[in-house]
């Protein structure tokens, strides 16, 4: 599974994308965030305030309870400021 990071999340983690292999008990977006947070200080800082994190599963917005299922691509980013 590919993980993508954008904007402040990308800066804090220090990566724009990486391959990840979360264990089977990581089922939802929220659980994946918790699992990623334990990968290092940058991850912990990036995900410190879950209220400011948005996620997409296979390029669609996903709520914290959404399953990651067999997703090929999961992305994390702050609230959007386009337009």
């Amino acid at each position, binding site marked *: 599974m590919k993980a993508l990071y*954008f*904007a402040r999340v990308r800066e804090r983690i220090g990566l724009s994308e990486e391959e990840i292999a979360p264990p089977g008990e990581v089922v939802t977006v929220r659980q994946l965030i918790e699992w990623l947070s334990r990968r290092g200080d940058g991850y912990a800082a990036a995900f410190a305030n879950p209220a400011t994190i948005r996620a997409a599963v296979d390029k*669609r917005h996903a709520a914290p309870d959404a399953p990651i299922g067999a997703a090929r691509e999961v992305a994390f*980013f*702050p*609230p*959007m*400021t*386009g*337009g």
Partner: protein
Amino acid sequence: MTPQPAPSVRVQADDFDVAHEQALLTQGRRDIGALVSFVGLCRDEDGALEALELEHYPGMAEAEISRVAVEALERWPLQGLTVIHRFGQIRPGEQIVLVLTAARHRADAFAAAEFLMDYLKTRAPFWKKERRAGGAPGDWISAKSEDDSAAERWR
């Protein structure tokens, strides 16, 4: 009832030409009554801003804007719809985003254009970082809660 037009959605680094896009939407047609365009421009914040750096999620940006465009076409009887969103470095006075709507009646064209902008603001995966005048590094622009409430009114 004419069939729903295919929305034209583009995500690009290059600038766009509003007149050209309007001409594309209306050429050869004599059934359009109302054409609304919205252009979002980069403001200089009273001279404090040197440029914006717009980051985006390639692939999802196009897909998400297309989903919002299809929703607009389902809600209002539009005759044409164009959305262009730029990414990369954008300087004050430059164009960031274009929404164009064509309809028989003005109320539909206005409502659809406002809806599209409200939804783009909260759903399209773009993030703006400031570069301050003098080259000082700026911060990421915060999402405004008023944008969320603007999007809420369409539910």
